């Protein structure tokens, strides 16, 4: 890639390494949920969207049906459609490049790319490709390490792995809670999920909370 600015390179690499390292947590979560090391590794390779991967294995771990796991994971990834919509005019990709760009269109690649906007259109493209492929590389390596590590540990509960996953979700949620209105919406969703747990099939209360987002987002 020609003339990548040092700044763009540094931004991309630091994000790729730190985010990629969390792949260890996903690898462990996948195995703890009952997926094989191969399946857990393929998850990161094929699905490649962190929160959704955690959601899918999390619903399975909680005893939910397969369909609930897939629906929860997919709903959680709908923001990626808006990211690809934002990136499309900057990247101007066609053919196989478009197919590759789609796979690495995630929170990190989009946000690093758009953060380079003041350095010109080249920097946006470089930020996207470097961050996306960097996270992809490290996320997959660390997933395999985490999966192998968890397999050798044995009982996930004895090592606290069953609490590490909800803790990771809380950590992902935390930065969004600065806004008071969002905090209320998050609280309502949590209570709603809790109340629905004994009433609905396992896994579906999570999906049902989308109704809270629809009601809250309907009006400004």
């Amino acid at each position, binding site marked *: 890639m020609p003339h990548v600015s040092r700044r763009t390179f540094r931004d991309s690499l630091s994000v790729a390494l730190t985010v990629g*390292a*969390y792949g260890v*947590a996903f690898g462990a979560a996948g195995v703890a949920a*009952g997926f094989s090391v191969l*399946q857990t590794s*393929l*998850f990161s390779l*094929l*699905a*490649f969207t962190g*929160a*959704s991967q955690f959601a*899918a294995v*999390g619903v*399975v*771990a*909680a*005893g939910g049906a397969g369909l609930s796991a897939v629906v929860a994971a*997919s709903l*959680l*990834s*709908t*923001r*990626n459609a808006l990211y690809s*919509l934002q990136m*499309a*005019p900057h990247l101007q990709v066609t053919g196989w490049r*478009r197919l590759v*760009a*789609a*796979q690495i269109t995630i929170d990190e690649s989009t946000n690093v790319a758009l953060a380079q906007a003041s350095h010109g259109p080249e920097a946006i493209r470089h930020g996207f490709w470097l961050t996306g492929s960097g996270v992809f590389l490290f996320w997959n390596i660390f997933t395999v390490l985490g999966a192998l590590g968890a397999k050798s540990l044995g009982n996930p*509960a004895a090592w606290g792995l*069953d*609490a*590490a*996953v*909800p*803790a990771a*979700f*809380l*950590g992902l*949620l935390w930065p*969004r809670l600065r806004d008071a209105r969002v905090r209320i*919406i*998050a609280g309502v*969703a949590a209570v709603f*999920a*809790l109340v629905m*747990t*004994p*009433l609905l099939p*396992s896994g579906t*209360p*999570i999906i049902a*909370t*989308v109704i*809270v987002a*629809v009601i*809250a987002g*309907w009006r400004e």
Partner: protein
Amino acid sequence: MNTVMTWSVLLGTSVLCYAIKLVGYLVPARWLANERLQRINSLIPVVLLSALVVAQALAMKTHIVLDHRMAGVAAAFAALMARAPFPVVVISAAVTSALVYRWH
């Protein structure tokens, strides 16, 4: 839990998540430009992540169970309040949960 189910979850999630990523590159920009759609979409991670925290910390199938997992999440909450970085949050949850699990 069986192999058919885990493979179905893996492949179903992968196909749908990829299709969703591809959407923005294929459709005209105005299709997803609706403000209401964007507002709802920005709230979806908030409600799903909250529900996932609750489900993972307290639900066991369709029952509410207060156990070592909730102790771990409480530790994560404390770590986040103290502005701890992400790895510290996850590790403190795991250590707390493991300790409560072993001493029970």
